[in-house]
């Protein structure tokens, strides 16, 4: 029975990962969903709290604000370096690739501490500016929202570069030549032909960056210094510090639903193959 062996082989190859994720992810998440309705007592109390608690509200709003600013900053910076990576001379391409990949492989923790070393009151920037006599008091660069935005932008640039570069690579060189042949200036070609042809990559990149940013934990915790708490840190605080498991679970559920809805809405722009370039 050939059909039977193929089916059993198919199951043998596909099942382990699906089973693992099912047991290690889906089932426990359903447990989290249950918590959100049962802790401390059965009902919609946690969701009502979530809608009304001013602290939770302010954290949600701050998270959205930071994510939007970070997404915009990442798209612009990633576009510039992706352009050099794809269309630069061979030396420029090599340098760009180095600058994109090295941070990509280094842990989020190291990078956050690196920024703390740059931005804190006794960090590189403030030390230099003070010794140069430009400022007398250190600038507040870290332990606030600015620090969080800088750190997150830094972390997320490579994730945006890959889909953008992939879109740039798929542009037909002859289309650009054609525009030139018709008398269009380089600036005009860039804005009316090149950029529109990378919209797909830009939207994909924006989505990835925004979704990753929503769940950021380490960078805001280190660079925000407890003063600009984002939603992931709030979940952590509710669960591991002020045991309020029900509210933490409810926030998690809302976060996952929000991300799921966003991805479902934009699914035609997501190409998994472009994630790693």
């Amino acid at each position: 029975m050939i059909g039977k062996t193929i089916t059993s082989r198919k199951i043998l190859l596909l099942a382990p990962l699906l089973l693992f994720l099912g047991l290690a992810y889906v089932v426990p998440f359903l447990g989290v969903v249950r918590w959100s309705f049962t802790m401390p007592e059965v009902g919609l109390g946690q969701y009502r709290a979530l809608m009304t608690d001013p602290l939770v509200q302010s954290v949600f709003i701050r998270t959205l604000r930071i994510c939007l600013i970070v997404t915009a900053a990442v798209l612009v910076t990633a576009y510039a370096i992706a352009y050099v990576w794809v269309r630069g001379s061979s030396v420029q391409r090599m340098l760009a690739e180095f600058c994109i990949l090295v941070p990509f492989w280094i842990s989020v923790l190291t990078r956050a501490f690196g920024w703390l070393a740059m931005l804190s009151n006794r960090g590189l920037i403030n030390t230099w500016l003070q010794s140069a006599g430009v400022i007398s008091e250190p600038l507040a660069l870290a332990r606030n929202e600015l620090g969080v935005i800088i750190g997150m932008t830094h972390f997320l640039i490579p994730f945006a570069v890959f889909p953008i570069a992939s879109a740039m690579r798929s542009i037909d060189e002859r289309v650009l030549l054609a525009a030139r042949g018709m008398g269009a200036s380089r600036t005009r070609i860039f804005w009316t032909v090149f950029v529109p042809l990378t919209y797909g990559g830009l939207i994909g990149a924006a989505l990835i960056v925004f979704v990753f940013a929503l769940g950021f934990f380490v960078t805001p915790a280190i660079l925000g210094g407890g003063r600009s708490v984002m939603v992931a840190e709030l979940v952590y605080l509710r669960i591991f510090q002020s045991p309020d498991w029900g509210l933490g679970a409810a926030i998690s559920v809302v976060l996952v639903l929000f991300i799921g809805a966003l991805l479902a809405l934009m699914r035609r722009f997501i190409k998994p193959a472009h994630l790693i370039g």
Partner: protein
Amino acid sequence: MPQSMQPGDAKAAEIKAVSIGKTFGAFHALKNLSLDIGRGEFLTLLGPSGSGKTTFLMILAGFTAPTTGRLVMDGKDITDVPAEDRSYGMVFQGYALFPHLTVEQNIAFPLKVRGRSSADVKRKVGEMVERVGLIGHEKKLPAKLSGGQQQRVALARALVFEPSVLLLDEPFSALDKNLREMMQQEVKRLHQETGTTFVFVTHDQSEALALSSRVAIFNHGELLQVGKPQDVYERPSNRFVAEFLGEINLLPLDTVELNGETAAGKFEDRTIVLNKSITLAGKKAVAAVRPEHMFISASPQTSDCNAITCRVEGATYFGASTKYHLRTRSGTSLAVSMPTASTSPIAPQSDVWVSWPVHQGFLLPDGG
């Protein structure tokens, strides 16, 4: 037809290429090429791939800078003028339409670049859409069009700003045979209507002969011959041109004598008389005759004709014509193409005479 598009319009440019050379590293893509492109002519650059014809077109367009030599347009040196300032029309292989713009927006692009008023753009685009037969497709994206329609958009976009030169890089290579012939006629018509200078690149010899006012044949980065289609086909100056433009029979000749306009040599035991189109170094040469210029008969034709004896080895039926495969007594193989309607079938293995008029054969150097 708008006034500005009359034939013989002053918009057509003439271009002189003087000693153009192009090297990529150690590779010589073009070697010392000089060529005059006349005002309003339809010049075809013909050659196999890698012959340098596309490199020359890219140099004309300004996308590639020549390593040596000058380009002169209407008396002005344009060698260092960038492509965007030459603004010739260009149709690329694969059309290179803007995939994010509609048919209308594609055609409007070069006009907008030139800062034309929106009323002007609208009028010109409308005219062009009508001229290339795309009415009803204005709002479509290129991906929604057939190959032939995309081709029309590319032509419209390249001609809408009335360029003085239109460059076409293998524009028909992606089309099937019927559509190809239709678009060839379309391009020929547009050439007559606009009066613009057309420079066309192809590797298809029949396309080159059918469309052009002159053909320039390239091989290994060299320009081998330029001339009217009839001239290059019937009086090729060397063996490569003779063979590239179509099938040809080559008969090795002994003791060639040149007498003024004609040449005579020995093939087997017959004297062959030919046009003298080349100067000859030695006594050896080749007689070249196109298959369709020869005919088969039971007895030799003598009045102004050469004739040799052959044995019929087979025949291939092509509908309008039939091609016979023959072999001479000394073993040289020959092909003779005759209209099917005017001949009765010839039996294989029969011995026949193959004849051709004196003025249809020509002399080529031996081995070259």
